[in-house]
């Protein structure tokens, strides 16, 4: 014996679900996967010094800041994008110019910059990253380390055209 494709109960449930989600915009027409732009985080721009130089590494190194940069919409990796990084580290506080540096993304849209160990400041071990080069809208991020013993931190950007 075959089962009915749709019982009255499942029909009512499906209709109810559609009515409930439709107006909320949760039902979208089929289209290419959309990657939403990354919003700036609260406090992300604090102690930003525009124009940090591109460096091999910040200070003596020992800690890695990593991440990716992609384009909003299709999510394509963006190469050659300048990401500025600063933090309170074992070698200086956020306002010290030598705590700031920048790096460029590679062909895969990935970046990796060595810097001194980030230490807790203002209550949390955290770093700051900025995309502020003009081609895309400016984004400031402020990721927090899960543990202050971590020796790396990552942050991902999805940028939308300016």
């Amino acid at each position, binding site marked *: 014996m075959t089962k009915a494709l749709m019982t009255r109960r499942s029909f009512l449930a499906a209709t109810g679900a559609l009515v409930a989600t439709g107006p909320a915009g949760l039902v979208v027409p089929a289209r290419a996967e959309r990657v939403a732009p990354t919003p700036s*985080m*609260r*406090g992300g*721009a*604090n*102690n930003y010094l525009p124009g940090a130089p591109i460096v091999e590494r910040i200070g003596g190194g020992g800690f890695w800041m990593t991440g990716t940069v992609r384009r909003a919409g299709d999510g394509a990796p963006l190469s050659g994008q300048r990401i500025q990084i600063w933090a*309170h*580290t*074992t*070698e200086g*506080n*956020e*306002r010290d110019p030598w705590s700031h540096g920048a790096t460029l993304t590679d062909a895969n849209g990935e970046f990796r910059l060595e810097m001194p160990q980030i*230490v*807790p*400041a*203002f*209550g*949390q*071990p955290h770093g700051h990253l900025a995309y502020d080069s003009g081609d895309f809208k400016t984004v400031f991020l*402020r990721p927090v380390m899960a543990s*202050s013993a971590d020796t790396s931190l990552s942050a991902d950007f999805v940028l939308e055209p300016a």
Partner: protein
Amino acid sequence: MAVAVPVAAAAASPLLAWRDPVYIAAGFAGVVAMELLLFQPLLASGWLPGLSGQRGRRVHRWVGGLLVLAVVIHVMGLWVTSPPDVIDALLFASPTPFSAWGVIAMWAVFASALLALLRRRLRPRHWRRAHTALAAVIVVGSVVHAILIEGTMEIASKIVLCALVVAATVVVIARLRIWAARAR
């Protein structure tokens, strides 16, 4: 013990090596403020040996003044260290949840001090209730603020000090029956 240990433990914090003197002073002003908070209910109740009754009250007023001073040094030191972070905190726009608790406690400290200056113009019962309510806000705000922060205070001594502050406040409020209807 409750006073010396948290300060000594904070003085041994590895974080100090990577901070400027102003930032270090700001942190210790916060630790001292928390310790002063432990004395306030005990002084108000007159339970400290040698500081009963009016004498305890008089010292309570002086310690209240020191508390205001400690909070001002704490905030000013943080302001010098990182102005945008302090502006965010004061505007309740900070990404860190503990900032808001600290700012609420700060305003309650200032309000409490102002109220104390205007005390003679208030009815005793109103004064007691308003001052105690502000004290409760100060204690809760300060304790949550301190517990959520990863800073120079050593964890165990911080938790013990915070627990003592809460316990002293709760016991004194309950014993003095501040909310009782009768005038005291």
